[in-house]
C-alpha cells in the first residue's frame, strides 16, 4: 500500500524537476531571511541564483551540529516565533541541546510523511498502534503519534518506561503495530517471557523501529522473538524527526527517502566531496519544504549509500542502505574504527548468544583496551569452565577477524547490563583523552 500514490511514485524526471524548483525557492528564502546562512554563502562565494541544477547543490556550504549550537536556540529559524507552533530539542548530552521548530504546515507535512512510513510498513487505519517512542522534547513520540492519527489508526500514546504495564496494555488492547527503538523491542520480548507470556500470542504483526542503528541480525532476532515483521525507519530531529526514510514491507531492503521533501547526498567522510551514486559515505540532507527550520546540506554523521535500482513496491524514491553506524557512535580503538553494530553482528551470529551487550573502553597507559560484556543466557551456559572459556575465545577471535582489533570478552550475569527504555547505551568510554 502507498499512502500518497501521486508523489511516492512520481517518475524520476518529474521528481527531480520538483526537487530543483523546491530547492531554488528554499535557498532564496533562507538567504533572504537568515543572516548566518547569508554570511556563510557569501563567504563561499555562492548566491541563490547559482543553483541552476540539482548538482549545483555541491556549491553550497555544509551545515553541522556546530552551526546549530552557535545559533542556539532560535538563530536559524526562518519565521518569527509567533508562526512556530512546536519546538523539539535533542537531549544535549554531549553539549548544548539542538533546538528545532515547526510551523503548522511543517507539522502537517511531518504527519503525512509519518503516515506514508506507517503505510509502507503495512499499517492501515484498522491498526492499533502501540507507540512506545518517548513523548516530549524527543521527536520520536509525537512525530509517530501525529502520523498514526493522520493515517486514521488507533494510537496508544504509551511513551517509554514501565515495561510490565506496556505489555499488559499491548495484550489487552490487542495492539497490532509496535513503535519503539529496536533495543526496547527486544527488552519487551524478554520481559514478556519473564511474565510467563508467549510473545507470539500478542496480536502484533509489525514493528517500526528506529532512533538507533541496528544490524540485520538484530532484525532477525526481533522477528523471531516477537513473531513480527521488523521495519527500519530513519529520521533525525534536525531534518524533521522520524519519517525521513522508511523500508517497505515488500522488500525490507533499503529505506525509501521522502525525496519530494528531502534531498539526499552522499559525501566522502573526510574530504566531504560528493560521491558518485551508489558509493558509501556520509549522508547529507537538504530540506526542500521546511518552513520554520530548513537546513542546507546538513551533515548527519550517518554512513550509508544510495540504492537507485527500482523497487518492487513501485515507489520511485531512492533507497538508502540501512544505517549500520554513525560517526558519533564510532569508536577509535588503537587507530581502528569500530562501530558497536559490528560487535552486535558478531554476537548475534553466535548460536545462543543474546544481543544484550555493552562495550567498555579504557586507556591503560597509552593503550586503549576494549572489553565486551556479554550476558550468559541459559542456552550458552555450561557447568564446565572450558566450554565458557571456549565461548569467550570464539567471540574474541571473531571480533578480531572482523575488526582487526583485539578485545577482551567478559561473561556477565543475566540482566546485569542495563535495559534501555529508549536508545540503548552500548558504549561506556572511560578514556580520558
Amino acid at each position, binding site marked *: 500500500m502507498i499512502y500518497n500514490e501521486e508523489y511516492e511514485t512520481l517518475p524520476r524526471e518529474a521528481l527531480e524537476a520538483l526537487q530543483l524548483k523546491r530547492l531554488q525557492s528554499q535557498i532564496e528564502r533562507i538567504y533572504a531571511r537568515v543572516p548566518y546562512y547569508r554570511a556563510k554563502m557569501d563567504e563561499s562565494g555562492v548566491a541563490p541564483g547559482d543553483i541552476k541544477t540539482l548538482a549545483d547543490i555541491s556549491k553550497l556550504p555544509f551545515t553541522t551540529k556546530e552551526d546549530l549550537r552557535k545559533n542556539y536556540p532560535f538563530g536559524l529559524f526562518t519565521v518569527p516565533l509567533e508562526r512556530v507552533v512546536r519546538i523539539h530539542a535533542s537531549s544535549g548530552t554531549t553539549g548544548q541541546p539542538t533546538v528545532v521548530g515547526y510551523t503548522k504546515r511543517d507539522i502537517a507535512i511531518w504527519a503525512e510523511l509519518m503516515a506514508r512510513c506507517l503505510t509502507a510498513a503495512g499499517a492501515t487505519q484498522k491498526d492499533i498502534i502501540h507507540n512506545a517512542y518517548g513523548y516530549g522534547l524527543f521527536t520520536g513520540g509525537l512525530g509517530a503519534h501525529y502520523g498514526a492519527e493522520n493515517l486514521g489508526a488507533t494510537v496508544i500514546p504509551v511513551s517509554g518506561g514501565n515495561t510490565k504495564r506496556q505489555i499488559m496494555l499491548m495484550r489487552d488492547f490487542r495492539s497490532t503495530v509496535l513503535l519503539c527503538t529496536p533495543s526496547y523491542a527486544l527488552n519487551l520480548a524478554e520481559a514478556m517471557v519473564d511474565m510467563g507470556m508467549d510473545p507470539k500470542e500478542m496480536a502484533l504483526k509489525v514493528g517500526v523501529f528506529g532512533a538507533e542503528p541496528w544490524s540485520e541480525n538484530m532484525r532477525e532476532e526481533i522477528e523471531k522473538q516477537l513473531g513480527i515483521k521488523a521495519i527500519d525507519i530513519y529520521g533525525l530531529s534536525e531534518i524533521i524527526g522520524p519519517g525521513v526514510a522508511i523500508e517497505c514491507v515488500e522488500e525490507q531492503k533499503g529505506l525509501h527517502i521522502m525525496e519530494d521533501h528531502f534531498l539526499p547526498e552522499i559525501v566522502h567522510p573526510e574530504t566531504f566531496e560528493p560521491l558518485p551514486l551508489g558509493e558509501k559515505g556520509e549522508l547529507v540532507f537538504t530540506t526542500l519544504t521546511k518552513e520554520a527550520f530548513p537546513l542546507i546540506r546538513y551533515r548527519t554523521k550517518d554512513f550509508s549509500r544510495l540504492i537507485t535500482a527500482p523497487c518492487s513496491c513501485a515507489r520511485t524514491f531512492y533507497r538508502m542502505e540501512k544505517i549500520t553506524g554513525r560517526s558519533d557512535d564510532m569508536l577509535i580503538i588503537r587507530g581502528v574504527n569500530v562501530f558497536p553494530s559490528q560487535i552486535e553482528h558478531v554476537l548475534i551470529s553466535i548460536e545462543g548468544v543474546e544481543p544484550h551487550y555493552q562495550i567498555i573502553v579504557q586507556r591503560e597507559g597509552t593503550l586503549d583496551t576494549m572489553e565486551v560484556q556479554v550476558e550468559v*543466557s541459559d542456552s550458552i551456559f555450561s*557447568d564446565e569452565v572450558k566450554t565458557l572459556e571456549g565461548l569467550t575465545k570464539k567471540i574474541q577471535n571473531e571480533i578480531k577477524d572482523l575488526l582487526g582489533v583485539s578485545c577482551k570478552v567478559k561473561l556477565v550475569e543475566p540482566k546485569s547490563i542495563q535495559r534501555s527504555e529508549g536508545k540503548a547505551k552500548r558504549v561506556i568510554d572511560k578514556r580520558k583523552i
Partner: protein
Amino acid sequence: MKVEQIAIFLENRSGRLAEITGILAEKGINIRAMSLADTSDFGILRLIVNDTENARKELKEKGFTVGTTSVVVVEVKDKPGGLANVLQIIKKADLNIEYMYAFTQKSGETGLIIFRFEKVDAAIDVLIKAGIRLLSGEEVYAI
C-alpha cells in the same frame, strides 16, 4: 545411577555466594555437596541439593543462570589407595573426566567422589561392572 547437579554462573563479585546460599536457606533447601570452579573473571558454582527442581526454580526466579547436569557419585573406602583404585578403572576404560570433587559422609568410613564424565552412561556401566558402589540420587539427597 545418575545424580542431578545444578550449576550456577557467578560473576566474581563479592556477596554472590552468600546470596545464593541465602536463597536456598530461606526455602529450606539443604546443600549436600558443593564445589566452585573459578577463573579470573567468573565462577561456576556446582551444587548437589536435596531438592534440585525447587533450587533451580528459586535461583532462576532471582535472575541467576542455572543449568542442570548429571554426575556420578562413587563411594570409596576412606583409606590410602581408595581413590587410586577407582581412577585406575576409569583410566583403563579410557573415560574422560571433566571434573571431580569429593565430600565425606557422616560416618567417616567412606568418602564420596563426584565425577562429571564426558560420557556418563558409559562410565556408569564400567564402574558397576568393576564392582564399584555408586550412590543413587535418592541416597545422595537423603544424606
